[in-house]
């Protein structure tokens, strides 16, 4: 029988140790894992992007349930260990069950430190430690406006940034005079504070919190100096303390943490400990890199490599706030024999400081340009004598390494032992070997095999360069995020996020704040920005008509000869004698050369001169016909079959449903055109399964299908779900429209969007999360209030943009 290994703690440190063990000695133990949280093992350092909405929970899962099953690990989720019986070599669960072990690994992590002040226990006071905390914060951000974050360290600022991204007003209270004082010096702290304040964060330093006030929930924080800061949510992010209760009660030697020797063994030789709960050579760690160093030693020890030893870690830090580049490593406090090399470029917002002692780097703080952080860190760890390159050291590797090379050759020049991924402690040699040995061709594969860039992701660029160097032309490039156009380096997603976070509400504001490289953009970025602003700030943003493609400016489709085509709306593809008569009259009156029935069940009047458009529309309006938006990145048509009203096979009233959907969605602007259809039975005569949103009636209700396309690349829809009532069809439809509007890139149809984000993501947001669905739907209806106005009538009768349809005259 295999010896039994019990692991207390299902977090990053414990599971990394298990992963390392499985790699070294796959069948050595019978492994049982206890986790107090109800979740599978996820990447705790990615809680910040989760809060900021940049990642979903699925994105940050490290090992899903199948991993445990595949490796024959018995997992007890949400089950606490109450006691360790060292003498009897057993653990006791909260339920009273006793489980024997041969080796025990304590990986209980740490608990957030709660300030012992009055009111700390009130509802509305949360910490920032696990998924549950993030969910509480997100929930609060939906219902409330004001948040206070106590603590201006790494964790506090990431929490504050995330809350800001969720639309809250955020005040950060920090006890010390400058932010992140453990990682930053005064100058970098100042630059960081200024940048965060520009983004709308209020920061109070030297703020000593005395009390959290509020009757039955937190209503604000009272400072020592008498100031009161009102808040609906108070986040305590003042630090962590190792969770040693269990170890202590079992009689293991504990000080600040569970004391371990260099072999990661506690005072009981059968029991090891790893992670934030550990105290090693007097130090406790709260960053991820040391945990992984420890995990390697733990695994080696468990695999009977008695010589393996942990010798402590030198750590470095990056702030995970999009748009702020900040790196810190080592010690930069002033001491005897320390020398500073400083570079300041105020207008570029760059600050670099290296602290040297005996010609070796002792500490580094980089702000604004952190590209050389890894290089400095490597020299710091290796204790490299830098006297030969002192004069150019601060300018970075490109200069000090001789010759200003491209970044690729800088990476090529790195030693095999150079650390690429700081989070997971993966060096260059290991990545290159993995690429060649396993034939890896993408960043994702490198991640899966080596863990490099699998945590915070800031080394993704370096990993890509290693792929390029190793594979040469064989590297086809990964899904590197593409910039929108030549006017900016930012991607669609980054721009959308920054528009929201920085509350940018005009195109000039976006271009100014996000440092556009051209004066007023180009025909690619301007329409995209106009759409993103319109989508983000309904009713508030003033549409920039000159940033629209001519069809949306003229509200008609330009043809190859410069004439236009006119498509009146026919709700659900239905029409009547009055409308048809008006169309016939217009065709004759204006001598319109071609009338064509479209694929979306409308009539297209082709060859109209531009200056005639307002008069054509006026006559159509008189018969009740309005714009069909056939010219827009907008809801185009809802196609229907006759359904149960006439058809002997019809199961539901598809025409009526089509009209209702079209009445709800018409006029909305979308990333690209949107076509819908409703079929009255599974024979699907309306071809709903190649539409962006297709509804197919069945006897018991309605099937909802999404992401279809009948264009260049035919794609059949995916089934989103089945619903029973007409109200549900409308709600799901509105929610889907809004999700697409919020998430797709400009000019991305639903089909490629769906393939990019995955059907599961859409199901999660719309089907599984009832509240989110209701919110999306409400947001869609809110946006619709501002756009459901016939643009033809505005131009035919109200003189909007009259100059568009009139030539100038020669005097």
């Amino acid at each position, binding site marked *: 029988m295999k010896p039994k290994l019990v692991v207390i703690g299902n977090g990053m440190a414990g599971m990394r140790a298990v992963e390392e063990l499985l790699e070294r000695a796959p069948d050595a133990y019978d492994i049982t894992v206890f986790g107090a949280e109800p979740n599978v093992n996820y990447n705790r350092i990615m809680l910040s992007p989760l809060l900021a909405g940049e990642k979903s929970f699925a994105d940050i899962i490290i090992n899903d349930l199948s991993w445990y099953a595949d490796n024959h690990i018995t997992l007890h989720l949400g089950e606490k260990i109450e006691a360790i019986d060292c003498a009897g070599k057993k653990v006791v669960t909260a339920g009273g069950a006793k489980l024997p072990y041969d080796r025990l690994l304590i990986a209980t992590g740490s608990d957030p430190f709660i300030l012992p002040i009055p009111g700390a226990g009130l509802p509305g006071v949360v910490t920032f430690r696990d998924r549950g905390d993030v969910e509480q914060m997100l929930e609060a951000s939906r219902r409330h406006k004001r948040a206070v974050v106590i603590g201006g360290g790494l964790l506090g600022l990431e929490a504050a940034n995330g809350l800001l991204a969720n639309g809250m007003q955020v005040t950060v209270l920090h006890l010390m005079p400058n932010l992140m004082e453990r990682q930053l010096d005064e100058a970098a702290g100042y630059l960081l504070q200024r940048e965060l304040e520009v983004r709308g964060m209020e920061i109070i330093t030297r703020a000593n919190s005395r009390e959290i006030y509020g009757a039955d929930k937190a209503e604000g924080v009272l400072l020592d100096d008498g100031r009161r800061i009102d808040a609906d949510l108070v986040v305590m992010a003042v630090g962590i303390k190792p969770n040693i209760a269990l170890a202590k009660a079992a009689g293991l030697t504990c000080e600040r943490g569970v004391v371990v020797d260099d072999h990661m063994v506690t005072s009981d030789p059968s029991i090891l400990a790893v992670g934030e709960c550990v105290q090693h050579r007097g130090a406790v760690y709260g960053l991820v890199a040391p945990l992984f160093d420890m995990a390697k030693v733990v695994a080696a020890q468990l695999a009977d490599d008695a010589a393996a030893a942990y010798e402590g870690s030198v750590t470095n830090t990056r702030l995970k706030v999009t748009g702020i580049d900040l790196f810190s490593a080592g010690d930069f406090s002033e001491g005897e024999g320390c020398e500073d090399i400083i570079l300041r470029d105020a207008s570029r917002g760059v600050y670099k400081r290296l602290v040297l002692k005996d010609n070796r780097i002792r500490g580094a703080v980089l702000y604004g340009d952190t590209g050389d952080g890894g290089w400095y860190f490597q020299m710091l760890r290796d204790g490299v004598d830098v006297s030969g390159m002192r004069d150019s050291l601060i300018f970075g590797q490109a200069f000090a390494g001789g010759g200003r090379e491209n970044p690729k050759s800088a990476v090529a020049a790195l030693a095999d032992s150079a650390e690429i991924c700081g989070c997971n402690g993966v060096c260059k040699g290991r990545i290159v070997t993995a690429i060649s040995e396993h034939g890896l061709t993408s960043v994702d594969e490198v991640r899966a095999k080596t863990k490099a860039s699998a945590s915070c992701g800031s080394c993704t660029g370096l990993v890509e360069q290693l792929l390029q160097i190793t594979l040469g032309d064989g590297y086809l490039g990964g899904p590197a995020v593409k910039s929108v156009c030549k006017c900016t380096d930012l991607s669609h997603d980054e721009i959308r996020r920054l528009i929201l976070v920085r509350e940018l509400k005009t195109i000039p504001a976006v271009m100014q704040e996000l440092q556009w490289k051209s004066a*007023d953009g180009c*025909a690619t970025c301007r*329409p995209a920005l106009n759409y993103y602003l319109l989508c983000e700030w309904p009713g508030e943003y003033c549409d920039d008509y000159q940033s629209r493609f001519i069809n949306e400016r003229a509200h008609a489709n*330009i043809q*190859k000869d410069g004439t236009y085509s006119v498509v009146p709306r026919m709700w659900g593809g239905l029409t009547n004698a009055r409308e048809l008569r008006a169309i016939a009259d217009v065709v004759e009156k204006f001598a319109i050369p071609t009338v064509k029935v479209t694929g979306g069940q409308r009539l297209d009047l082709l060859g109209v001169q531009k200056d005639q458009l307002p008069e054509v529309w006026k006559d159509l309006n008189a018969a009740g016909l309005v714009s069909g938006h056939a010219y827009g990145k907008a809801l185009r048509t809802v196609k229907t079959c006759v359904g149960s009203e006439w058809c002997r096979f019809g199961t539901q009233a598809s025409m009526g449903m089509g009209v209702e959907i079209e009445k709800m969605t018409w006029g909305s602007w979308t990333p690209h055109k949107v076509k819908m259809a409703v079929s009255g039975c599974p024979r699907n005569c309306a071809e709903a399964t190649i539409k962006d949103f297709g509804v197919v009636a069945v006897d018991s209700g309605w099937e909802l299908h999404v992401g279809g396309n009948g264009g260049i690349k035919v794609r059949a829809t995916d089934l989103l779900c089945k619903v029973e009532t007409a109200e549900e069809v409308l709600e799901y439809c509105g929610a889907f429209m809004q999700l697409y509007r919020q998430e797709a890139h400009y000019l991305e149809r639903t089909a490629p969007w769906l393939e990019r984000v995955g059907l599961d993501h859409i199901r999660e947001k719309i089907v599984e999360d009832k509240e989110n669905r209701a919110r999306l739907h409400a947001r869609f209806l809110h946006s619709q209030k501002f756009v459901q106005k016939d643009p033809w009538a505005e131009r035919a009768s109200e003189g909007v943009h009259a100059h568009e349809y009139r030539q*100038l005259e020669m005097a």
Partner: protein
Amino acid sequence: MAEWIETGKVTDIPRLGARTVQAGGLRIAIFRTANDEIFALEDRCPHKDGPLSQGIVHGRSVTCPLHNQVFHLDSGQGADPDDGCARSIAVRVTDGRVFLAPAPQQQAAE
């Protein structure tokens, strides 16, 4: 010598937009940039005759609405990699009024 003919005010043309004017058989597009500079080109893309006046104006360039070719407003020259050249029309602004001087042979073509 072509004669200068008044065709309206600068403010008749939307910023980052264009208006057209008919000069005999020639349709001219008059563009206004973000900085209120005025340029005039024949309203015909050298690629497939698209009406340049209907394009999106950015910097001192316009993107043709039919196939997205980009042209410099001052010269009519296609911006790299688009070749071809739209005909440039002399234009001047006095006291906020726009004057054009279409070449005489084009007027004679009518």
